[in-house]
């Protein structure tokens, strides 16, 4: 996507986090510490997992300019592996999450290596097709439990010592993972590597002529994005104690696109806002059945036609600061 960063937003500072971003992250952390005392912790954890998922997706779309329509494979794939590791192999939760994340990284590396051979809409179709292939694998493989999924995944004891059966204990474990993950993604975007990504997004032939091996950067960013999507999925499987076909279905890939689009692609805080809005919407509309799909479709259409900057993109324009 070429028109993700508005022209009127001042250029990034060379080094260090801008004070505004520092303040926003600090406020976010305070909010997240207070949140479980106000809302249902499981709901808050779901929002955080999807926020990390959308942020990982945004690394690829917003900063790498690559639209993947198959990110459910990494999200759901990691959730299956983490659930299996925790339940069958008896891994502690942190090791289960790490195993799931590593699996997503490998899957991302493999699919990414093939997908980056095509550009634009073909790239989107290729990633979607491979994700569908993974869906069929998850449907037929033994260890995924087919239609039933992996149920009753034990949350276990963190480092073998701290029990996570209490929702509050688990909440702060999930908070540490997702907040840390989002900060790490922020660091990637604002590193020299991130600058080269933007250069490739804006003008690929020029980046090639400057001597950058574009495909290697694309593969790295694809793998990184898949890895963090996997981190989110693995964490989610512990929260809900479940890994199921829903997480690898193409509609999940669509949802993460919607979250990023609605929040504002290419912005730091957009995916977090988008994920919060969509998860909240699903929560309140759950009783209306198919209307959730229809409303998501309408948001997609309106977002593309009228609201391409997204919520945070518009805020960023008003404040004349990158958010």
């Amino acid at each position, binding site marked *: *996507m*070429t*028109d993700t960063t508005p022209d009127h937003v001042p250029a990034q500072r060379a080094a260090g986090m801008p004070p505004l971003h520092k303040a926003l992250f600090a406020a976010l952390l305070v909010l997240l510490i207070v949140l479980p005392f106000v809302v249902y912790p499981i709901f808050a954890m779901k929002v955080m997992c999807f926020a990390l998922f959308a942020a990982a997706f945004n690394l690829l779309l917003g900063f790498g300019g690559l*639209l993947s*329509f198959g990110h459910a494979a990494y999200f759901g794939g990691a959730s299956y592996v983490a659930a299996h590791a925790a339940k069958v192999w008896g891994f502690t939760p942190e090791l289960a999450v790490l195993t799931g994340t590593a699996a997503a990284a490998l899957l991302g590396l493999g699919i990414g290596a*093939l*997908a980056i*051979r*095509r550009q*634009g*809409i*073909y790239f*989107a*179709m*290729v990633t*979607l*097709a*491979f994700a*569908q*292939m993974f869906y*069929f*694998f998850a449907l*037929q493989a033994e260890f995924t439990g087919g239609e039933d999924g992996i149920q009753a995944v034990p949350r276990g004891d963190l480092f073998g010592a701290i029990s996570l059966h209490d929702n509050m204990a688990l909440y702060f474990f999930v908070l540490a993972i997702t907040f840390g993950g989002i900060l790490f993604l922020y660091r990637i975007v604002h590193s020299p590597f991130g600058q080269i990504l933007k250069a490739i997004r804006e003008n690929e032939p020029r980046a090639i002529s400057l001597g950058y091996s574009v495909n290697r950067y694309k593969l790295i960013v694809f793998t990184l994005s898949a890895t963090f999507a996997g981190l989110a999925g693995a964490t989610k499987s512990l929260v809900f104690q479940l890994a199921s076909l829903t997480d690898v279905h*193409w509609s999940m890939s*669509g949802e993460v*696109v919607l979250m990023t*689009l609605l929040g504002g692609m290419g912005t730091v805080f957009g995916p977090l806002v988008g994920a919060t809005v969509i998860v909240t919407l699903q929560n309140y509309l759950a009783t209306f*059945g*198919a*209307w*959730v*799909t*229809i409303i*998501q*479709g*309408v*948001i*997609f*259409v309106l*977002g*593309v*036609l009228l609201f*391409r900057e997204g919520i945070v993109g518009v805020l960023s324009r008003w404040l004349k600061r990158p958010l």
Partner: protein
Amino acid sequence: MFELLGIPPQVLLGQLLLGLINGSFYAVLSLGLAVIFGLLNIINFSHGAQYMMGAFVAWMLLAYLGIGYWWALIASPLIVGATGLLLERFALSRLYKLDHLYGLLLTFGVALIIQGLFRNYYGISGQPYQIPDLLSGGQNLGFMYLPNYRAWVVVASVIACLGTWFMIEKTRLGAYLRAATENPVLVGAFGINVPRMIMLTYAFGVALAGFAGVLAAPIYSVNPNMGADLIIVVFAVVVIGGMGSILGAIVTGYGLGLIEGLTRVFYPEGSAVVIFVIMAIVLMIKPEGLFGRAN
């Protein structure tokens, strides 16, 4: 009776026929995608939903108005095409100056809306649609039994594919179309109404999807999800073939349907993924697709 690698010929031919039927749908749908892509440069994600709409409109014509299969075969594509006309005129046409990926996102949203609406009113269980009297029954060919309707699906899809190919490659209208694909500004300068041509092209591609839907109605049960998974396979077909040539899309569609049928005979577990595996191989060997042009 002879056997091939321990497979009785009835099974082999039966699966090949099934593969040919699937291939017919792949060919008609990927052809529609290729026609739309050629002029609009977008990939029509709502193609599967529009295929489902074609089947549903045929069913609704029969259930509510008593209009039978043969009229539905004409009316349903026209109705679905008309919705495509409106979609292009009021939504897609606003996106041509932007990145092509926005077209993909918009049509994805449209697909969600269409599928959600039909799921809301008709549930996810399928509605049966009778095979028309003229085509019920079948032929005993001695070595296998050939249901008349399935033979008709193959014939009808071949006619639709060849008709489209003829129109695009051999007629004056098709020449305008191909010229507009190469250079829309120049064609516009010659006094041809390019925006209207784009609109009609999109409607035509969508009508092809609706036509495939009507063909599918008596074979598969008419249900809101019938297009969702199919369209992803068709995307893989399009990646394998490349969208550069009309004939390429047709040949790839039928060919992959047959390969899928053969896989179902020799390695049933792999039949759901064989097309994706072929896509991976093609991406490694010839990334631009079998009939694609390198860019």
